[in-house]
């Protein structure tokens, strides 16, 4: 399952592995025994086992989804770390009644082609909280703290008295290793049971299976299908096979599984950027001091330059200018006392530093996103915008947006659009209202771009809007990572990206309206021409000969107009797309530079001089032909072919 990605115990958290709880928080009764007053220490596992709702296990439906999500996230992270194109297969099925009231017994199984896990690391990965190779590394990985998969094991253990069944094999192993992993809740350790080795039909990979209490919800915003749609969208390099209950039953209880395969649309692995050292202005005093302990006996000068990003000789000179002596920087860092640390920290906070690097931000990429969005349904038109990474709240952030109009929802003009939110390529499915993404969408005036929108609400229409936020330091509102904190800077950055996508959309919609207008005019010619001539002949008492002659003359005049309208219509259609390139044929994507931009929005965007220099790329495509027969211009019937336009270099 997860390669060597989730086991490196983080030093920062080692101390916090124990959570102190006052056993007697309430005022002690006079006759209380001494034991009641004793302060006890709980393990991290004990804390989380009692607070699983904080990490996504707050309802039966969420428990299934969170378990699946954590397993898939780990698979994807492991594959990407090792440069393996992920191929993941999942099974979710109902096995009977659950032990909890009104719950079902659900089997969640995830199998991947990842690097595999060394047997000795298996208990750490699946059975130990805060055992992570990724915490605080400043990388845009899906998992960060090493909580999620252990919480899933705990949930399985609590509801079905059985942990996670793991089968794994690395390339170096001759046989696969299989075991049941459980969490030793008292000591926050993973425990292996029923260990065995077996022959496996693959050279490497991991298979993990949980039997848990929960309920399967396939559809709706919180449904499994929505999660899978989102995961597929932001992971163009993923091949996914899902086995989900089929049939009419919404909860899928007892139904046969249907296997659906969604192949990858690109063989290019996302570039995993190197982690960067922490930035001094993003640290608190405690973290700053703790960070020094990682470096042992080194000089302050070297510690600052090597341990942090954006610190160089110039920074040291600036600090000397604030009153620190040169020889202070020659001291060993482990000799500094608390007062000296505090003084140094304060002076650093008052010193100007270059903003953190944005190199650590992982991008899905416009082309990959443009291809991937074709997998969410029958797409009529879409617009993709990927802004260059920027700094929000002193942390590097990258926002990517895809808006698509779906043909199979053509009738849903009055329903709010479907919003897909992503944080580090993980779909967020709950607590939508408080999320920075939702708030940013609501602040944009979508009416200006041709979409209906009630006041301060989501726009309306058969659209799907995917907003992906990627950052090594995403600020979530809760441990279950369901909502991104809506800071002003982040909301503004998302808003700007949305405006760009809206402009693109607007161009399409306006051209489409123009095409409709022209079509209507052509229809007018057929309808009104004969009526006009009839009326004139009645008033003037003209003969039939004159009438015929006038009708011929009118058709000549309007025929010329019809030709002109047809040409204009064809041109309008041409502007919507180029030629007949299909979206599947990526090699034929055509570049178009210097596209005109909506002036209103330019004003909005140019308000920030920083953003002016940012390179922006946009993609748009039109697919799934919907030809319309026109009364006069029948040859227009073939104008709506799937097309793609790419504009670059903003």
């Amino acid at each position, binding site marked *: 399952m997860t390669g060597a990605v989730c086991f490196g115990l983080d030093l920062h958290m080692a101390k916090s592995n124990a959570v102190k709880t006052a056993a007697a928080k309430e005022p002690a009764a006079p006759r209380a025994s001494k034991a009641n007053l004793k302060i006890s220490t709980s393990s991290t596992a004990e804390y989380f086992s009692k607070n699983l709702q904080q990490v996504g296990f707050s309802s039966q439906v969420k428990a299934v989804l969170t378990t699946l999500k954590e397993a898939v996230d780990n698979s994807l992270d492991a594959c990407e770390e090792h440069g393996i194109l992920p191929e993941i297969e999942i099974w979710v099925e109902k096995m009977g009644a659950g032990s909890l009231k009104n719950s079902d017994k659900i089997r969640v199984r995830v199998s991947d082609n990842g690097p595999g896990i060394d047997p000795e690391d298996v208990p750490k990965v699946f059975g130990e909280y805060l055992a992570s190779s990724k915490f605080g590394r400043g990388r845009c990985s899906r998992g960060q703290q090493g909580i999620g998969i252990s919480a899933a094991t705990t949930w399985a253990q609590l509801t079905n008295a059985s942990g996670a069944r793991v089968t794994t094999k690395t390339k170096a192993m001759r046989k696969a290793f299989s075991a049941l992993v459980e969490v030793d809740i008292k000591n926050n350790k993973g425990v292996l049971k029923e260990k065995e080795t077996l022959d496996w039909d693959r050279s490497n990979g991991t298979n993990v299976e949980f039997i848990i209490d929960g309920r399967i919800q396939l559809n709706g915003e919180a449904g499994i299908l929505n999660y899978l749609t989102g995961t597929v969208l932001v992971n163009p390099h993923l091949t996914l096979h899902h086995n989900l209950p089929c049939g009419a039953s919404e909860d899928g209880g007892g139904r046969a599984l249907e296997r659906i395969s969604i192949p990858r649309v690109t063989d290019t692995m996302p570039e995993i950027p190197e982690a960067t050292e922490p930035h001094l202005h993003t640290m608190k005093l405690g973290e700053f001091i703790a960070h020094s302990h990682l470096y042992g006996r080194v000089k302050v000068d070297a510690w600052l330059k090597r341990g942090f990003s954006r610190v160089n000789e110039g920074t040291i000179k600036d600090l000397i200018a604030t009153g620190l002596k040169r020889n202070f920087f020659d001291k060993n860092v482990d000799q500094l006392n608390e007062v000296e640390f505090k003084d140094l920290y304060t002076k650093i906070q008052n010193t100007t530093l270059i903003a953190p690097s944005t190199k650590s931000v992982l991008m899905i990429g416009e082309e990959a996103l443009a291809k991937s969005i074709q997998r969410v349904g029958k797409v009529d038109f879409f617009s993709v915008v990927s802004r260059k990474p920027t700094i929000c709240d002193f942390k590097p952030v990258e926002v990517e947006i895809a808006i698509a109009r779906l043909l199979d929802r053509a009738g849903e003009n009055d329903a709010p659009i479907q919003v897909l939110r992503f944080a580090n390529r993980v779909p967020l499915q709950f607590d939508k209202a408080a999320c920075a993404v939702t708030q940013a969408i609501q602040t944009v005036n979508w009416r200006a771009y041709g979409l209906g929108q009630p006041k301060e609400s989501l726009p309306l229409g058969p659209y799907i809007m995917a907003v992906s936020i990627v950052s090594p330091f995403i600020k979530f509102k809760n441990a279950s990572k369901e909502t991104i904190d809506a800071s002003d800077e982040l909301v503004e950055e998302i808003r700007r990206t949305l405006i760009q996508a809206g402009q693109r959309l607007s161009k399409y919609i306006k051209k489409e309206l123009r095409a409709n207008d022209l079509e209507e005019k052509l229809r007018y010619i057929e309808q009104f021409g004969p*009526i*006009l*001539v009839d009326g004139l002949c009645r008033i003037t008492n003209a003969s039939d000969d004159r009438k015929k002659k006038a009708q011929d*003359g*009118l058709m000549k005049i309007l025929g010329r107009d019809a030709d002109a309208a047809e040409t204009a219509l064809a041109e309008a259609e041409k502007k919507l797309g180029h030629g007949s390139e299909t979206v599947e044929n990526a090699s034929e994507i055509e570049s178009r530079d210097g596209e005109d931009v909506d002036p209103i929005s330019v004003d909005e965007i140019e308000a920030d001089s920083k953003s002016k220099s940012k390179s922006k790329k946009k993609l748009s495509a039109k697919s799934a032909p919907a030809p319309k027969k026109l009364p006069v211009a029948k040859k227009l019937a073939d104008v709506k072919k799937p097309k793609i336009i790419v504009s670059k270099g903003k």
Partner: protein
Amino acid sequence: MAKHSSGMARVGGKDSKDLPKFSRDICERLLADLERAKRPVLYATKCSLDNSIYNHKVGFLTAGEKKVATELNVSSVKKMSRAIFLLEVMLRNLETGGVNTKRELYYIAKGEVKHNAAMKALDFTDQDESDGVIDFICELLECYREDFNVYANDRGGQTYSQNLIVTETLVDGDTAVIDLSRLGTTPFQPKNRPQNLKLSTKKKLDFCLIVESEGTANTLVANGFTKRHNSVLIGAAGVPSNAVRGWCKLIQDQLDVPLYFFGDLDAYTMQNIFRTLKAGSAASLIRNQDYSAPDVKFLGVLPEDIAKYQLPDYAVKESDAQEGRALKKAHDALKNDPFFHDKKNKGLTEILNWLIKNKRRCEQQAFFSVNPRDPLMPEKIIVEKIKRGNFV
């Protein structure tokens, strides 16, 4: 300019008798163009403020040189077809002597479409559409819709007098004589066809008073205004309708009597009500000649009346949509309306400037506050203002 049968001058020199021929001529021209596969073009007078000219010697807003050309193409074919269709209906009205309101014409047009499936595309979805086409036809032919026997509802203009006699020529040629002094407290309701009316008086009238509020006009009459004063008293009922405008024009032309307008002191009254009564409107440039009374004077309420009679007045609330809009329109009028640019109307322009600057308004009924126990006080003030020449 030719003289209308009622004695009024006409724009374009056409009357109802000319219209069928003139309409056929235009249709003939259109048909001939079509036969030659030449694109026909219709020219209509542009009725808007930017094509309005005001000359105090003429006394009303007239049309400038601008024309709206409608060329037959895919964009205009619907409009042109509808115009020819409705023109045919209106010509039939003339032939049969039918008289209709615009609303009725809308339904007649719908009826035609209902009984002829080939015309379905012409159907009007609401009256605004058919009204627009009627206006287009009138601008095209430079005629009044009344020339086609299409009238608006009679509204406003309730008239009282002890000395006025109206002789009406009916459609069948008969005449009816109405002695207003014999109607008691029942007012005479002027018709939308002023050209059918002839006025005379038992003795020479002193003045004609047009009151903005119909209610206040009724009160003055009830208190014996017309008994004590040798006058004609009219209740305008807000923005004067065509009937009121034509009626006032008729009184001005046929009775040679000074006309005074008594209304609120606010931008809406000055710009929308009084200006329309005195000089017509930009939307009806082709008909202002017969539907405006250039001699009418603004009796008040004047800005100085507020101080002189200590009248209660109010601040204009810009937050109020209607009042804010009136203020904005007043700004526009000062900037773009040729009526307020004319030096002869300097006094009226100054009132408009005063209203914009002070943002105060005073209603005509405020005169009832001068001596609350004397119901005749407003009448006394009005007559005193006329005698002293205290008007603009």
